[in-house]
């Protein structure tokens, strides 16, 4: 008995409580024979691909031995397994070049999360109250097959709605094959902060429906319209890597960055010049710059080619975007516009980036087209230091399977309303859908919902049957990075470790379902690995003497120049039928009753809320406010003073569609007429770390759409802010002070 337990006993004996020892004492623990040969203390490195965002960075997983609690034939015991310990960037992978963002580091916590769904579940309570009972895999798959057969017999294949995470990569190709052969519409991949608007604009301007990639290391000057490309937008690690080289990569040359946005994002914080602009006016600024470039004969209108033609009045030098008009519309002074224009012209190669909030206004498409035209005018398209499109592999061509293109699906709300059966794979639309879409009510009516999610989030809580998926470390991890690398990349890697629980990989489950249907869909592959192997067989080997697939298992994917037949050709979408002119952004809610613009933004820890369940990310201090475990509203210093709001006070945000309460952070880095709030918190049910914490800004958004697309215009809502009470302790800041110099001297 050492000194410490002596003190422990005196404390307890004082109160007379017997000290109950918790857990089974060490000597009675059963130690099972490990089923893999592990050298204790020896680290093993295996490749993998990060699943958390669309960037698809390559990982190197460090594995070592660990004792896992296991139930074997009725007795609980411990078995030594090879467990993943740390995720590191894959040094050879072109997208992230060995680096990894904060979210990527925390991806390992999805595998070891205490609230993971460990076996198939069947709903045992009312839909939505989250009470489930265990069931076997055969029953679960049988249930889904039964429901799909019922649809088949009733001839209502169109009534199957499939909510998936992303529409790229082998997984979504398999889903597309499944739905096409079943006769159902294509899967709906609704991602609030996804960039459909930019893809549509790139299709119109450059014929490539794809996110752009920026050659930042060679750029001399970058102007970014609202794109938080160092934080959460597009491919942050690759862009961060490029940014580092842009600044200090070349001796004697230091790239510069100008950021045009209403609220200072993490990228804006690094800008040499931060240009606050009225929300939705980024497009007119881009056109103003183009006007100046053409007027001062720094660039010729014709240089813009097809992208320029998409803008009304382009060939005439954009006469009606004179700096004075641009100043009145955007609030940016003419002197500053001329300075920005000259910077773009003189510090070549220069490039313009657009993304995030500017594309989330009703005029988002015009803004994107304007910036594309500006890029074309600057001659930065497909030029060093400019804008590129990563060559995409054509999976159908590679795997020689017949192309399967299911009929296009409607938007989220219409599809949910019409659905008889809903399958959910890794998406949480209930959390990110606009309230007016009434998605929860629609799903309440759907006869049968099945989910493949590994966590019980808002949408999966509505499911009747849950068939839990492996996490990315326990199954084939794959990704087709749409951007972030100048050469083509196909990320794929086998399972890094054995599954911890009784879960199965969703692609294999889908294949098994397709085989068990009354009318089997006989997909071209028997297992998901077969599908991957088929693709890699078509690719040239990266090292002599071995084929692409064995290389991929060791290096984590394939990268290099694609053979011509495998490259997805630029879609021959016709140039816009009618050139588009700049339109004022429309805002929901009248200006008098709701004076402030509301700007929800993708938070650097949780993106759209899909990562709120990871404790490391909840406790990571936010780069701008240093807040942990909380959500907050950023208000301009002057506006806060006018409304009598002090730092930390609880405020109420009211729009014409909903209200929410959150603590206020008074910040100098936001326009006076804008109120910003990070998305990600405010989950109703999402494991112990995220449930019932903070507020979700999406609950007050208007269901406005971006003209020309059906993407949600999430920045087009006006709100009213009123102070509710003093600080209630829900805002947890890691930092004490936010300024370096001592204020004033008596």
């Amino acid at each position, binding site marked *: 008995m*050492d*000194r*410490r337990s*002596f*003190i*422990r006993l*005196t*404390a*307890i004996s*004082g109160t007379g409580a017997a000290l109950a020892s918790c857990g089974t004492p060490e000597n009675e623990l059963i130690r099972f024979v490990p089923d893999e040969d592990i050298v204790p203390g020896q680290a093993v490195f295996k490749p993998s691909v990060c699943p958390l965002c669309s960037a698809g960075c390559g990982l190197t997983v460090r594995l070592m031995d660990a004792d896992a609690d296991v139930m074997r034939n009725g007795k609980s015991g411990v078995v030594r397994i090879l467990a993943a310990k740390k995720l590191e960037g894959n040094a050879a992978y072109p997208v992230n070049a060995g680096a990894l963002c904060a979210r990527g580091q925390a991806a390992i916590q999805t595998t070891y999360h205490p609230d993971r769904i460990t076996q198939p579940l069947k709903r045992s309570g009312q839909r939505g109250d989250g009470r489930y009972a265990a069931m076997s895999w055969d029953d679960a798959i049988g249930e889904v097959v039964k429901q799909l057969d019922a649809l088949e017999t009733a001839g209502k294949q169109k009534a199957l709605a499939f909510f998936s995470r992303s529409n790229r990569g082998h997984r979504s190709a398999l889903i597309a094959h499944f739905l096409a052969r079943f006769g159902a519409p294509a899967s709906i991949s609704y991602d609030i902060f996804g960039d459909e608007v930019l893809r549509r604009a790139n299709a119109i301007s450059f014929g490539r429906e794809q996110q752009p990639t920026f050659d930042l290391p060679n750029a001399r000057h970058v102007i970014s319209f609202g794109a938080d490309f160092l934080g959460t937008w597009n491919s942050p690690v690759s862009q961060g890597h490029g940014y580092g080289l842009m600044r200090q990569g070349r001796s004697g040359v230091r790239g510069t960055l100008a950021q045009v946005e209403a609220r200072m994002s993490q990228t804006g914080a690094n800008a040499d010049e931060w240009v606050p602009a009225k929300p939705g006016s980024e497009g007119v600024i881009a056109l103003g710059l183009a006007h100046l470039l053409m007027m001062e004969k720094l660039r010729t209108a014709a240089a813009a080619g097809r992208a320029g033609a998409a803008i009304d009045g382009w060939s005439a030098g954009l006469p009606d975007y004179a700096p004075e008009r641009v100043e009145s519309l955007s609030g940016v002074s003419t002197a500053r516009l001329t300075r920005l224009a000259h910077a773009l012209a003189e510090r070549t190669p220069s490039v313009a980036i657009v993304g995030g909030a500017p594309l989330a206004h009703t005029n988002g498409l015009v803004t994107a087209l304007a910036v594309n035209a500006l890029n074309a005018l600057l001659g930065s398209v497909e030029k060093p230091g400019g804008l590129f499109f990563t060559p995409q592999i054509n999976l159908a061509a590679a795997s020689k399977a017949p192309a399967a293109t299911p009929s296009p699906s409607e938007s989220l709300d219409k599809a949910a309303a019409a659905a008889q059966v809903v399958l959910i794979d890794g998406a949480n639309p209930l959390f990110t859908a606009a309230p007016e879409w009434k998605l929860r009510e629609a799903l309440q009516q759907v006869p049968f919902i099945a989910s493949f999610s590994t966590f019980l989030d808002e949408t999966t809580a509505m499911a009747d049957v849950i068939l839990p998926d492996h996490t990315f470390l326990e199954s084939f991890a794959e990704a087709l990075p749409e951007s972030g690398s100048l050469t083509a990349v196909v990320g794929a890697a086998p399972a890094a470790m054995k599954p911890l629980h009784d879960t199965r990989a969703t692609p294999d489950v889908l294949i098994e379902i397709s085989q068990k249907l009354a009318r089997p869909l006989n997909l071209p592959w028997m297992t998901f690995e077969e599908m991957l192997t088929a693709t890699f067989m078509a690719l040239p080997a990266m090292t002599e003497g071995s084929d692409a697939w064995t290389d991929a298992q060791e290096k984590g994917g394939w990268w290099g120049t694609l053979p011509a037949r495998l490259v997805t050709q630029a879609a021959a979408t016709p140039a816009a039928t009618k050139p588009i002119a700049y339109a004022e952004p429309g805002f929901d809610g009248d200006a008098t009753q709701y004076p402030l613009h509301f700007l929800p933004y993708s938070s650097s820890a949780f993106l759209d809320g899909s990562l709120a369940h990871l404790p490391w990310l909840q406790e990571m201090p936010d780069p701008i406010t*240093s807040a942990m475990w909380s959500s907050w509203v950023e208000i301009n210093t002057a506006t806060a003073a006018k409304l009598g709001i002090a730092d930390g006070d609880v405020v109420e945000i009211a729009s014409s569609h909903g209200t929410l309460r959150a603590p206020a952070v008074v910040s100098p880095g936001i326009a006076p007429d804008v109120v910003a709030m990070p998305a990600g918190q405010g989950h109703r049910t999402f494991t112990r770390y995220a449930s019932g914490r903070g507020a979700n800004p999406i609950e007050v958004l208007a269901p406005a759409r971006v003209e020309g697309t059906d993407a949600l215009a999430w920045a087009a809502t006006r709100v009213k802010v009123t102070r509710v009470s003093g600080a209630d302790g829900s805002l947890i800041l890691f*930092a*004490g*002070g*936010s*300024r*370096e*110099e*001592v204020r004033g*001297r*008596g």
Partner: protein
Amino acid sequence: MSQPAHARINVDLLRPLLRTSWRFYFLVAALGSIVLTALVSWLSQAFFGFGVTGIRWPVYWGFYVTNFVFWIGISHAGTLISAILRLVDAGWRRPVTRCAEVITVFALMIGAMFPIIHLGRPWLAFWLFPYPSERLIWPNFRSPLVWDFFAINTYLTGSVLFLVLPMIPDFAVVRDKATGVRKTIYTYLACGWRGTPRQWHRLETAMQIMAIGIVPVAVSVHTIVSFDFSMAPVPMWQSTIFGPYFVVGAIFSGIAGLLIAMAVLRKVLHLQDYLHPVHFQNLGKLLLVMALLWGYFVFNERLVTYYGNGPSEMAVFWRTQRESFAPLYWTMVICNFVLPLVLMGIRYFRTITGCVIASLGVVVGMWLERFLIIVPSLGHKYLPYSYGIYRPQPVEIIIAIATFAAMMLLYVLFAKLVPIISIWELKAGRASASLAEAVGEGGDARPVARGEANL
């Protein structure tokens, strides 16, 4: 200043020892329960983890270290006053010295507990002790905490002996007066004291040496306690003035503590015949002097910081002067400077109650002063990102209150076991006083005590 007759001294001073009323048991029970709650709360802190306190990043020291410095401060007046008064052979010291030395010993014991209480892993506190261990590692003698360890232990040994030695003749008196079990105990305690000139001479010489030795040790202890702060590069900590500043603060709070203790004893034990207003006035004047000295040091430190105008120093400066800690700061200035100056400066107010009010103010003020040295500086160091606000938790508040209860408890028990005024010194004083006055006092026939309310 008339001294009661010889025999009456024995009766008056031994009365608390020989007769105990129910009030004593009630008081001991009350104070004991407070101390017990503090013990249980400390054990719960050791058991559940240090998080039950209010300590946080970056303010890693709070109430516990404030109490530590405060109680080590209170302990200084006792020895310093009795030692100096003994050296200069001030006649009026006789009834005061033991009260003072007792405060020193008990305050030291309470203060010395706090380095253990504020440890994250108290069950390893013995690593501070330089003992040869098979791990071949010794404490780091270059650390101010190890200096604290040596200094406080030396000072504790010194002041305990300084207290105990003059008690031996008093034990002899009690041995002669007491009966039964008490007699056997005190016979053992008096360890054969007979009062031969040889013994008296040795005792007096020993007390002289101890008096000379204890003064530098007392000064060194609080300088070392101030080194705990001035050795660390923290804004408004790293200043050379901290040594004397803390020693002055210590004596200041010590005198205040002594005045309060003497006033309470005089009231409860009916020692009006021994603790005359002149004692309070002399100590009151000393309190006034120390208040001025303390004010001087505070002004000195503040001016140098203000004039130097370093950014991080000024951040702490304004926090205490104007912003979050300003109310505490100005209460401290009023309690430590304005109140003593007014009450002690004006003769009309310098009565016993005046002294007690001023002393209570000074005790509160000095506790606040230690708090305002530690917490604002730690919360606002060089990097503003890492500023922090400290909020004490119940555990710390209970233990802080319990320290005062513990002091009173120990004092009450001591007054029950040992005559609170040194009998033989009083008699020695009376003998020399009567020689000075031509006519012998004789037993002035003042009634022994007004009413039987004794403890």
